[in-house]
């Protein structure tokens, strides 16, 4: 038998090595391309609250974050605030400070693919950067991001566990949900406007995932839109879910003085549920979702029963 040429053997070994290394290397697809890491990393800077939530859920404390508490941005949502005290701030989410990030010597930067899309190349120069669709992502997108982030920081098993727990929790909640309950209208109420969130928005789709029906679907490509009291009266939902902030006087307080508000079926039936809008719309990570499922149950929204005082719109 003729022995193999040494060249061929070398080539074979090389390609085997290449295969092995590509199997070992971490490859993650994100909104701006594909990120490859030689090994999982620990020093992470995050530029959006959903990433902060995800990292904390996986047991990693970021070395820096766009916490934006300077200058009066609403800052981290209340449920995260206690855990962000020791995380150095790297400026606002709109314009993170590149210098501060560089000085933190991160091994990974987690950015929003849209909001920080323009400065992605600059971020990528400071450290390997993954840009995910967080602000415009659906629940499925965000779950996929949890898994991807888990792989990047070497907590893939933990990420899978978190997602499995979350799925289990949601399924359990679904069994509690009252079948054939009337559809709900969910809306964020600020001092000046009421914005309804349709079944394609993040919170809207989340509540549908819990087994309840959203009364609204997107108008064109708008998954959220403004509604006046007249529009709300025309919809006349039997269940109304409001998201407000404790430091604001929402516009619904003003509407309550109108006799039409009293005519809303949801008001007459006592089915107006109130949640913290920062916790529900700005966290969007595994910790937030756990809290949201718990509150959806605790508020009795799932069983379409009258809410306890903590979640009621009556002060």
């Amino acid at each position, binding site marked *: 038998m003729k022995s193999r040429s040494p060249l061929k053997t070398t080539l074979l070994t090389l390609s085997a090595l290449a295969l092995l290394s590509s199997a070992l290397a971490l490859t993650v697809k994100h909104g701006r391309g594909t990120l490859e890491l030689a090994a999982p990393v620990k020093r992470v800077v995050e530029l959006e609250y959903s990433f902060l939530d995800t990292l904390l859920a996986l047991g990693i404390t970021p070395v820096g974050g766009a916490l*934006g508490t300077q*200058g*009066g*941005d*609403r800052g981290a949502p209340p449920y995260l605030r206690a855990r962000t005290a020791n995380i150095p701030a790297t400026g*606002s*989410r*709109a*314009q993170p400070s590149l210098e501060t990030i560089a000085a933190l010597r991160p091994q990974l930067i987690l950015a929003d693919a849209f909001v920080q899309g323009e400065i992605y190349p600059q971020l990528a120069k400071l450290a390997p950067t993954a840009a995910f669709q967080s602000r415009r992502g659906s629940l499925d997108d965000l779950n996929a991001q949890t898994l991807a982030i888990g792989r990047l920081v070497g907590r893939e098993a933990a990420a899978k566990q978190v997602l499995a727990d979350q799925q289990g929790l949601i399924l359990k909640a679904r069994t509690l949900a009252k079948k054939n309950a009337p559809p709900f209208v969910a809306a964020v109420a*600020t*001092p*000046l*406007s009421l914005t309804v969130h349709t079944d394609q928005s993040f919170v809207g789709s989340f509540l549908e995932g819990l087994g309840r029906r959203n009364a609204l679907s997107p*108008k064109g490509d*708008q998954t959220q*839109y*403004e*509604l*006046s*009291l*007249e*529009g709300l*009266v*025309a*919809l*006349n939902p039997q269940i109304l879910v409001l998201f407000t*902030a404790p*430091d*604001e*006087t929402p*516009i619904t307080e*003003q*509407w309550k003085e*109108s*006799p*039409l508000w009293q*005519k809303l079926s949801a008001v007459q039936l006592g089915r107006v549920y109130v949640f913290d809008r920062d916790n529900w719309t*700005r966290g969007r990570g595994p910790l937030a979702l756990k809290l949201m499922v718990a509150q959806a149950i605790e508020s009795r929204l799932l069983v379409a029963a009258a809410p306890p005082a903590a979640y009621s719109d009556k002060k």
Partner: protein
Amino acid sequence: MRKAGLPQSGRVLIFTGAWLLLLLALLASLALGASEIPLTRVAQLLFAPDDSTDSLVVHALRLPRTLVAGLAGAALAVSGLLLQGVTRNPLADPGILGVEAGGACAILVMVVFFPAAPSVLFVPAAFLGGVLAAAAAYSAAHSAANSAGLTPLRLALAGVAVASLLGAATRSVQILFETRAQGALFALSGSVAGRTWEQLWQVAPWLGLGLVLALLFAARVNVLALGEDIASSLGARTARDSAVLTALGVVLAAGSVSVVGPIGFVGLLVPHAARALVGADHRLSLPLTALLGAAFLILADVAARVVDRPAETPVGILVAAAGAPFFVLLARRIGRRA
């Protein structure tokens, strides 16, 4: 002078038409919206309210909203006419003077820095912001060097500068206070959605009194519009009159901005249309401007309601989209004359 003498019958016809248009706008505004109510039912409910949802919609929502739109439309249009007459400047418009940007900026500052403040306070805040902005633009355009310096170009440039300054201030607030400002974006574009009886009563005295005074002073605007030299020779106390009428114009505009937000170009579009119809005599063009302004804004608001039901489109944007090309046209014409 354009059309100096219109025959009596022509005037009657035009004013009857304007009243009919206003009536039509009122009825449409009461009948159309997120839900449609037949006209016969509207008429019945208007005089005999009952407990039904339709009745409440008409009385608690659409009636105040319609009246606010009508009042604000009339006030903005008359404000434009007064300012144009006094300054003899066809580009004088509350929007171009920066009144609206000032009011909007003040509202944003309120939302961001005093999130707990009741929305009742937005009215005086916008009022203050509007008056300050107009004063800045007007005094900058009114050259210190010569008294006849209020050319269309100067006024437009001063307005642009004030608007940029306020825009920069607004953007600073938005960037530094990113998330809090989100909720204010809608309010920055002018809308009459959800205006209540209380809000109507807050501004009605100002605007109503302002409109009545403007009607009484219409003859003086005619004198001032002749130019200061001729006006003085006719025995008018020009300085005092023009100060009073300018103040009246700014109060009318700021009052409407404080309740409906920035709605540009009504003060530019409507007076020009009214003058084209009945000529430059302010005793005729002023009441016609008020009627057409009211009808115009009410109809624009109806369009804003039904264009994307049940979502609301800010009416200010619709008006701006309709008015801005007219502004370009006007600028072209004035630029040729200058």
